């Protein structure tokens, strides 16, 4: 089965594959494949390698440091690198805030912030969700009050992935509370070293630390860090969510995880077990359906006929498929999945019990994979979008 990639696309795939094979450090690849949590330095090391090649922001317009990749090229890049075991290319700068800045930002903001993303020097995080504003993001209440040449920010953001590693946060803040909620939101770029910011870690169920709550206590943010117009932030946020959702199709990752499932089954002596084979077939079929759905939608995006809800379809299926593969891999481990030590996981303890802890990353990943159906617009919200916008119900 072949969708008929152009010869340029095929050549690009080959180039990405060879580059990744040659340049992805083995220790990082092994961690990714084993499901062990990555450190900041692991992400940065790989992204530095990509930055040097000019591949951090391939899909960006060349005038901002990208290569004008087509959606097909972005897809190929993502599939090839993740399948090979490269860390997830952190989206906060390159996929989220970068496009918002080059689309809506001032010339000064473009000059100041885009180069740091392309060169992988600045680590960004995303400050959208709040304790009382999750699915209903428009209810956010972190406020920014104008005071001379600055906004004074008060409130808190929660579930802020990797805020403890980040240099900057892009945040949605309330600048008008008298109007319809969506119309009083602004998009601010905030240096995390500004006085008044504290980052509190939140421990999650798989034993790692990547979530945080970020508190703002009279934080002064220069007005020139406002993106676009005041009170127009909701539009920029929706633009960004579109970018966020297209990413969630996890073809390369799914394939990589299926490879691991096969090797776990073989190590457990279950490769010929009919129950296992039936389940493996189901998972492979689900992934095949997702892959071809992604490709069809990619084609529609490229010829401009995309209906607008394709990202919801891909998010819904991509998140659950990866979730199922992760859990079934744990099931296939059987009792070998029982040893688990979050402290050891974090300290990357290998000896003296390496044998016992070998599978801990698989278990940790299974637990973490409960999250993709919650984040980025939960799967319930995606179903609402499909029902409303694709089906005209309600």
């Amino acid at each position, binding site marked *: 089965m072949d969708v008929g990639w152009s010869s340029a696309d095929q050549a690009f795939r080959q180039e990405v594959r060879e580059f990744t094979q040659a340049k992805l450090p083995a220790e990082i690849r092994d961690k990714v494949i084993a499901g062990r949590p990555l450190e900041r330095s692991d992400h940065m090391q790989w992204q530095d390698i990509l930055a040097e090649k000019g591949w951090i922001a391939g899909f960006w317009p060349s005038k901002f440091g990208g290569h004008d990749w087509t959606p097909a090229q972005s897809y190929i890049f993502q599939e090839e690198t993740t399948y090979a075991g490269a860390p997830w290319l952190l989206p906060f700068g390159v996929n989220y805030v970068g496009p918002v800045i080059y689309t809506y930002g001032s010339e000064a903001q473009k000059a100041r912030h885009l180069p740091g993303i392309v060169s992988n020097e600045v680590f960004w995080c995303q400050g959208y969700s709040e304790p009382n504003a*999750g699915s209903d993001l428009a209810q956010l209440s972190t406020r920014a009050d104008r005071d001379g040449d600055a906004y004074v920010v008060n409130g808190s953001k929660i579930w802020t992935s990797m805020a403890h590693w980040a240099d900057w946060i892009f945040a949605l803040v309330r600048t008008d509370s008298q109007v319809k909620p969506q119309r009083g939101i602004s998009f601010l770029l905030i240096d995390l070293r500004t006085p008044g910011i504290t980052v509190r870690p939140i421990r999650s169920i798989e034993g790692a630390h990547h979530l945080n709550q970020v508190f703002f206590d009279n934080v002064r943010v220069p007005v020139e860090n406002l993106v676009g117009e005041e009170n127009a932030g909701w539009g920029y946020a929706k633009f960004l969510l579109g970018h966020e959702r297209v990413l969630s199709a996890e073809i390369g990752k799914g394939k990589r995880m299926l490879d691991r499932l096969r090797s776990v089954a073989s190590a457990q002596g279950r490769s010929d077990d*009919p129950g296992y084979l039936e389940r493996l077939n189901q998972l492979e079929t689900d992934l095949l359906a997702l892959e071809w759905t992604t490709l069809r939608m990619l084609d529609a995006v490229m010829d401009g006929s995309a209906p607008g809800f394709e990202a919801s379809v891909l998010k819904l299926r991509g998140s659950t498929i990866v979730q199922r593969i992760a859990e079934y891999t744990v099931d296939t481990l059987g*009792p070998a999945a029982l040893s688990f030590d979050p402290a050891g996981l974090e300290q990357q303890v290998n000896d003296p019990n390496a044998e016992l*802890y070998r599978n801990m990353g698989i278990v940790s990943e299974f637990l973490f994979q409960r999250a993709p159906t919650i984040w980025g617009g939960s799967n319930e919200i995606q179903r609402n979008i499909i029902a409303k916008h694709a089906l005209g119900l309600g």
Partner: protein
Amino acid sequence: MKITLNEEQSILAQSVARFVDDRRDAVSWRPADRGLDPEIWREVAALGWLGAGVGEAAGGFGGGRAMSVVMEGAGAGIRYAEPLSQVFVALAILESADAENPYLSEILSGEAFACGLIADMGTGIEAIGSGDDCRISGAFKAVPYFEQVDHLVLALPDLICVLDAQAAGIDTQTYPALDGATRADLSLDNVQVKSVAVLAKGESASVALNRGRVFHAAAVTAEASGLAAKLFEDTLAYVKQRTQFGRPIGEFQAVQHRLADMFVALEEIRSLSLATARAAEDGVPADRRLSQAVVGVIDRALHIAREAIQLHGGVGMTEDLPMGAGLRRLKVLQLMPAGAQTHRRTLTGRAT
């Protein structure tokens, strides 16, 4: 029909529930921080819960049903359930083998801590020789709290015996486990059984092994039932209170249907758990239906745990709530030796 609890059992259920509930936010669902907390164990013994597992002749006041009542209540507090369940299995085997053996009173009083190991939990288990020179070899994986265990109560098809956990020839590898307990993989190499520690042989051993099996299944299903109920109730309370889009999320029909399905699953869990409790009470042989009940309960409880996380949103992913600990514990009940996965394989006729 013997469906409803008698008065004594109802009181027991309430007192266990109250005890666990009082400790709910403090410690009950949190992992046991590795070892068994001796303080907690003394408390449990003093409350007399252990007597629920055996009849009067053996020094208790209960049997299969009363044991299930305790396990269901303890299920909502993960750190109580695991040590209780292994002790109940040990007690059931001991009572069946010889209701007057000295181990029973020691264990019931909380002086000694025991672990019941049934043949189904091990691999390559062999008893060689007889009389004063009986020796056991083989392996048991993921034995909980082994460091605190005094007696290993072993139920094999034609031998019931008690091994000193410190006996020569038991090699152990201890590790922290997914449910917060410490567990150990044991490898037994010609471990000598003292003749006084042989409690039954032949036919009466096989009866005791069966009892161990049925009590184990009943303990697992009752615990999962209590745990699933807690995850369900917490989720129900949460969707009534969490507001998004100007109303409690429980007002969205999509959410209501999910809760309704969880509720139906929980009802079935309670039914299957009752079926195993009756099997334990009545002393029937372990059969396919017993395995089906264990598999059915754990499948449904896992569904409830996954839904509980999802419906809590981001906060469901944190250790501030019991959802993750519940999912991890249920995964242990699924994957541990003689857990739901073992039963599923028995049902489909595949060697484990």
